[in-house]
């Protein structure tokens, strides 16, 4: 299958975006902000259709709007970010507006499908260059903010006391998340960004409690999902996004099962009656 140009391009695009999504998604899941990623992708739909309407490339419309959305969400602060209803309303409005833009553009149902569910096989060489550039910029930004981001995520009060500018870090991170959702939408579409940004990261966090290993695993799972999804799509002629979504779901389910099994096994073997007696260890039972 690699003899085809469009397949080589698709593999490159999926690889770039998957690694970025896995790494950014790890922090997104750790911070409990997955809904923000979902919302930004929906807002990006409006940007993409708006760009199509004025004759620009949908990728850039999406990048602009998702980054602005991320910065805006960050500036609104944590309290606003947790307002599910408000975010839900904004993203519904954004989707509706996107639909209106499509309506004016008329007759391009394929365009809508590509935006909503992705079209990795339609990625051009020029888009690859853009994806790579944006991914490198995102990763550089993530590397710069990673340390204070982690500190502010794990221990917000202490981070504040030690001089971390939490609000700034949060805004920068959500801008990176915005960029990543825009990239991700090119592969799996705005409706399925969870499959690359959240699924792999959540599975990685179930499989290892180590930060470094978790990040590597998250990127690795996302990469495997992307490349394997494309391969399966090539041989079955089913949509790539379906395969990536299916692989994401299966991986997460398997990781959940493994994690539960490992925990139960460990508990049985490690439970020390003397420690339970002293109250240092809880008696055997399933926790949430």
């Amino acid at each position: 299958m690699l003899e085809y140009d469009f397949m080589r391009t698709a593999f490159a695009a999926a690889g770039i975006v998957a690694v970025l999504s896995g790494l950014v998604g790890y922090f997104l899941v750790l911070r409990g902000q997955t809904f923000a990623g979902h919302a930004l992708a929906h807002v990006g739909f409006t940007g993409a259709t708006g760009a199509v309407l004025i004759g620009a490339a949908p990728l850039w419309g999406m990048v602009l709007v998702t980054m602005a959305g991320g910065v805006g969400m960050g500036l609104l602060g944590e309290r606003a970010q947790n307002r599910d209803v408000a975010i839900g309303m904004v993203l519904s409005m954004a989707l509706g507006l996107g639909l209106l833009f499509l309506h004016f553009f008329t007759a391009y149902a394929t365009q809508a499908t590509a935006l909503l569910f992705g079209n990795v096989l339609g990625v051009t060489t020029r888009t690859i260059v853009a994806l790579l550039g944006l991914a490198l910029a995102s990763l550089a930004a993530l590397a710069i903010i990673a340390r204070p981001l982690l500190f502010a995520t794990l221990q917000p009060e202490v981070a504040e006391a030690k001089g971390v500018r939490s609000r700034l870090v949060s805004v920068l991170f959500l801008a990176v998340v915005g960029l990543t959702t825009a990239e991700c939408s090119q592969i799996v579409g705005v409706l399925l960004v969870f499959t690359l940004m959240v699924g792999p990261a959540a599975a990685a966090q179930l499989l290892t409690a180590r930060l470094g290993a978790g990040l590597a695993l998250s990127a690795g799972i996302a990469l495997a999902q992307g490349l394997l999804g494309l391969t399966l799509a090539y041989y079955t002629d089913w949509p790539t996004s379906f395969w990536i979504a299916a692989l994401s779901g299966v991986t997460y389910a398997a990781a959940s099962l493994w994690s539960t099994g490992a925990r139960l096994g460990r508990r049985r073997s490690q439970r020390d009656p003397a420690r339970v007696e002293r109250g240092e260890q809880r008696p055997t039972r399933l926790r949430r």
Partner: protein
Amino acid sequence: MNAVEVAGLTLALGGRAVLSDVSFAIAEREFVGVLGPNGAGKTTLMRALLGLARPAAGSVRVLGAPVAFGNPRVGYMPQTRGGLDGMRLRGWDFVAGAVAGHRWGPPILGRADRRDVERGLGLVDATSLAARPLRALSGGERQRLLLAQALLGQPRLLLLDEPLISLDPRHQHSVVALTRDLQRQLGIAVLFSAHELNPLLGALDRVLYLGGGRAALGTVDEVITGPVLSRLYGSAIDVARVDGRIFVMSGRHPVEHDHHRHA
């Protein structure tokens, strides 16, 4: 040099004066319990010592210098939140995340940083806890990790905000004993806030009792008396001593138990 020097300090929170014109000094190797009813300003005082709450009036000096935001010589352990219940990250990364966490860059630790983390974990006997995910740890075990985090960078002053909250008496005792041992071993000053005096009895050098905008600092025998506490509470307070334990009573009710529910 004093660990903490406060002169004519007035602190306001949301327009309400929490402390007004308070002065006291805490010496370098002192273990001081910070007590008082809810809203008396225990947390606000600690935030002022961290440079997070700006005084409306007066001066605050920490370790011989005017209070500085992000002072590495001050270790801080905030009140625990429920936010860690679902955290799958292991304890080691949780503590390591605080090492120079204010600096930009990737979270990669150098050898000296790793030694600092090992040292902190070793001091609180949490080396084995560090391999386990946070969500699998009990409240007392998480407290030890938080304490390890507060000890990073070899601070000279520890601010511990309600470390005993939501711990059962047995664990309360072990946290107090551990803190006392560390405070002596490292020769540092500790401010330890709590709702109840009794778990701290025997460990404290002095008590800083806050109430009604005022503060009283002294030994337990000097401060935990009817007249002093009546002045702080602004109502008649009796102090009863039973079997080595102290009960602060307003009328017929122990006042501390009114404040168990924490906001």
